[in-house]
């Protein structure tokens, strides 16, 4: 979700990026790319053949669409079976900007604008929502949307603490709605290929997984001196704060990106990239329904251990130059490392057979497509609520260990830290009134 990355990468729908995607779509199923091809139901299965009648389109709303949200929204707008119909944002400039984009796309003035997301969610003609608010709102807004009967694509990090992670999974089970965490690397060929090597035993018995957390310092947003609050129509401060504890308006807190990221005393930390990289390690270790049981900060790294004995190491350095969000999986007979530039490096050239075409720049198109297919098929997305729940629990537990600056032991059955009340108290945090999950 880093703005800098977004700028560095440029417009993902530039000619080059689109070309890349087209090339991938046309070559992914060639023999050389078979391993890398995403495991999604082919579009033809669900009748996606280009021309889609308006009545067959998925009607989409947006909630909190800023920099990152605009990019993901552009991925949705490129899909023929999507009709974007409404935007809810606490900031007027963003509402206007998204409406302008949508109206220009469809050649009409139909895109509705709402300050309060609850008004958008009350519409029964909207099937799904893209949530790209700041992290403060992600979990609460996702659960509000599910309870209102909407399918959800939500940017990461998706939750602020362990309790929210569990509630997210439970809510999506109860409501039967589709959830896709914005962890798009789960749909990118280089990551999928590397994970398949680990899962299929081609690296031998796994023993160590590495994830880049992009920082290991926990932070709290705090309370800054009050400033003159703008009119609600321009910026609705109360709605912006949402579930976060009250504090006076201060424009420094308005960036959304870092505000209450993770909440509590343990925000930030490894959540920024960890929600991607730890998530990928979870998948590689076939651990989408569990999390590490031990966490210990040491020598500027965070060491964790899974119930199956596999070690997870969060480290900021020691990586091959493969771009942002790198991961590395090591087994008894081989290793593989990959990152956002799309390259894959492995202990043996033979491991790389069939790796397919390189796609760098971590586009979200494939992930968005997976979500849309599942909205139609009611199938399970790649980054479904259960997988997102446990990946985030791993990150939150790591952050708690970092905040307490000591080893913590986690019981994955009870979802509690063993004999550690301080750690346990950090598992959840009260929401400001009137919000609840």
């Amino acid at each position, binding site marked *: 979700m880093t703005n800098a990355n977004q700028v560095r990468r440029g417009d993902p729908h530039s000619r080059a990026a689109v070309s890349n995607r087209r090339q991938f779509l046309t070559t992914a*199923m060639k*023999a050389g790319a*078979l*391993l890398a*091809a995403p*495991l999604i139901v*082919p579009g*033809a*299965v*669900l*009748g996606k053949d280009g021309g889609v009648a308006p009545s067959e389109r998925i009607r989409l709303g947006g909630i909190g669409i800023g920099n990152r949200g605009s990019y993901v929204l552009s991925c949705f707008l490129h899909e023929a079976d999507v009709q974007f119909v409404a935007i809810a944002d606490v900031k007027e400039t963003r509402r206007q900007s998204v409406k302008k984009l949508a109206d220009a796309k469809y050649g009409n003035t139909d895109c509705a604008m709402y300050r309060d997301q609850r008004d958008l969610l009350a519409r029964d003609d909207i099937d799904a929502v893209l949530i790209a608010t700041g992290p403060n709102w992600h979990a609460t807004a996702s659960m509000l949307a599910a*309870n209102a*009967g909407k399918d959800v694509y939500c940017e990461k990090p998706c939750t602020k603490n*362990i*309790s929210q992670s*569990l509630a997210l*999974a*439970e809510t999506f*089970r*109860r*409501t*039967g709605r589709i959830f896709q965490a914005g962890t798009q690397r789960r749909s990118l060929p280089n990551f999928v290929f590397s994970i398949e090597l680990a899962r*299929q035993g*081609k690296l031998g018995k796994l023993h160590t997984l590495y994830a880049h957390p992009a920082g290991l310092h926990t932070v*709290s947003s*705090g*309370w800054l*001196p009050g400033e003159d609050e703008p009119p609600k129509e321009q910026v609705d401060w109360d709605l912006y704060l949402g579930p976060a*504890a*009250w*504090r006076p308006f201060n424009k420094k807190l308005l960036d959304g990106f870092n505000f209450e990221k993770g909440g509590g*005393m343990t925000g930030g930390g490894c959540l920024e990239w960890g929600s991607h990289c730890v998530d990928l390690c979870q998948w590689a270790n076939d651990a989408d*329904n569990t999390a590490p049981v031990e966490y210990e900060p040491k020598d500027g790294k965070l060491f964790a251990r899974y119930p199956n004995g596999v070690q997870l190491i969060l480290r900021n350095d020691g990586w091959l130059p493969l771009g942002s969000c790198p991961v590395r999986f090591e087994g008894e007979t081989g290793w593989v490392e990959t990152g956002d530039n799309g390259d894959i490096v492995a202990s043996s*050239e*033979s491991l790389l*057979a069939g790796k397919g075409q390189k796609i760098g720049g971590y586009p979200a198109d494939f992930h968005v497509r997976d979500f849309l297919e599942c909205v139609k*098929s*009611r*199938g*399970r997305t790649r980054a479904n609520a259960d997988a997102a*729940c446990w990946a985030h629990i791993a990150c939150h537990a790591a952050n708690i260990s970092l905040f307490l600056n000591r080893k913590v032991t986690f019981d994955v*059955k*009870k*979802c*509690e830290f063993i*004999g*550690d*009340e*301080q750690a*346990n*108290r*950090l598992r*959840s*945090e*009260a*929401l*400001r*009134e*009137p919000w*609840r999950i």
Partner: protein
Amino acid sequence: MMLTNSSQNFAAGQISRTGQTGQTRQTKDLFSRLLSLTALLACLAAPSPLRAVDPAGTAELRLKLIAVLQSDAPPAEKAITCKRLAVYGNRDAVPALAPLLLSKELNSWARIALEAIPDPACDDALRDALGKVQGRLLVGVMNSIGVRRDAKAVEPLIARLNDADGEVASAAASALGRIGGEQAAAVLVKALLSARKDVVSEVAEGCVRCAEKFLADGKAAEAVTLYDTVRKASVPKQRILEATRGAILARGAAGLPLLVEHLRSTDKGMFSIALSTARELPGQEVTQAVAAEMERSAVDRQTMLVMVLADRADASVLPTIRKAAQSGPKPMRLAAITALERMGTVEVVPVLLDGATDEDRELAQAAKAALVRLPGKQVNGELVARLSQAAGKQSRVLLELAGLRRIGEALPAAVKCAEDSDATIRAAAVGAIGLLGEEKQAADLVRLLEKSQTPRDREEIEKALVGICGRRGANCLPAVLPLAQSANSEFRLIALHTLSGVGGAAALNAVKSASNDQDEAVQDEAVRTLASWPGNWPDDSGVAEPLLALAKSGKKQSHQVLGLRGYLEYVQAAKKLQSDEKVAKVKELLPLITRSEEKRLAISALSAAPTAAGLEMLVAFAADSSVAEEASLAIVTTAGKDDLKGATKELRRGALQTVVEKSKTDRTRRKAEEALKRIR
């Protein structure tokens, strides 16, 4: 399926995650997790039963934090103090926190601590506040009571169910649902019939949550009754869907008719919730029922039901999915292929193989992709066994799969197929050998090359040889070196490409010899090979001498240029050369470096060898307009080093000043100026 109590369900969930395999694992797992998550949330919500710990220093810190709350400290300080008390507070902090519940500014902060501290005093404080606050603050207090599941609060919450403020009434319903129990359930059911429009959704959700708690506590019958009440009530559609799911799951095996009823529903929402519920409800009879529904449904629903079957991972349904994959509408066949892959067993291999040879390209590719990804050595064994019996198209597919799946056991069959009369099979076989083979197969390929009849065969064999040589290195020399001596110049060219992959001294000698080959095309290729010789230093440092010779006295200008380039790249990368030596070698070649391409390579080499002499040479390059910017950038990096070997400050300043004055790039000039400031 019997539900007993939550702890047994937790245990069941754990066993299915770690101990069981096979057809029912996934569905049991899903159902266990359903219950586990519900009960886990309850664990988190309730005050932690864990033994209190009080590490050294915490008591003192706590007293200080409480004192802050009781002082005239500004709200900002009190707010952050509340957060810290969430971790370090105990019942002693409650009297200081409770008054803050009346503050619009600090209510939410106080609740952070009061929700977290595992002491009944917090419940008392929150309950007490119910009669003291109104509006949103009251909503907040009730939300916290709900999170803490304070059973003593049921009566006061009931009193608020008919509050004129819809938000307050809704919060009361929500809190009652979270607390659960017979009294709360009875009141919520009653309220369901009379609730206002703005409250009814929360009342229904409260009922659903009560039912979940009944289920988690082993009271399935009570849960069923409650779910049925909600799904038949006049409540928002989404609540009905949730109650329907609950009603099916709470009934266990007896919920199957209700599931089937909704799988047949013409209502899109009901059908959707039935699909997700069908993934959760365990039991082989459920799988069979879903399979039966699939066969009787319209195509659009069939594809969705096939995916449900795939997620259930129940082997008993294999014949149904196999049939769906083999015939019928293409969309369903594609979905069935995906389902077979998800089943992930060796039994799906034959039908996927049939699919992989289908005339329809999309179907064939989907089946092949599934075969590549199917896990397990058993799958490999099955594919190898079939390879020895296969012919035609299937043979080709199997060979391709053998390569992509890295099935070493398939090599003997692949070598045999490499001499097949069908050119497409020969190509597939050689491709597989290239991916799987070792030195023995390299020798086999050389023999095949000598017998090859067509350019395409030779092309495929060359690719395979290069692949093997790249992996196996010097082990392949005995097989490849004779090719370099072949009377056939085409083979000698192939030898050069493979030797480049082998690397090392012996291969290098063979390539050097080839630079004097009688055939000019071989000479040219040998020079190109030398110029791009693999940089596995120091093993390959022997390439320096022939490259230097080529640069100085190559037979053709193109040989000289290639030699010069290769040599400069060697100088830059060679790890054994000291910086002074690198600079000296570049200096020696300066008379030969006349084109901007080689000048850039020289600048790169000098950048990799930061010395005073190198810096002087870079300054000289900066005067050359064709490479001035590259040289300027290199000067900034080199002269900016405080420990630059042998360089005086004057030399460094002078070099940087040159950049400031001459560079046309703002960024480079700015960097030079910054570096200059640092030297001063």
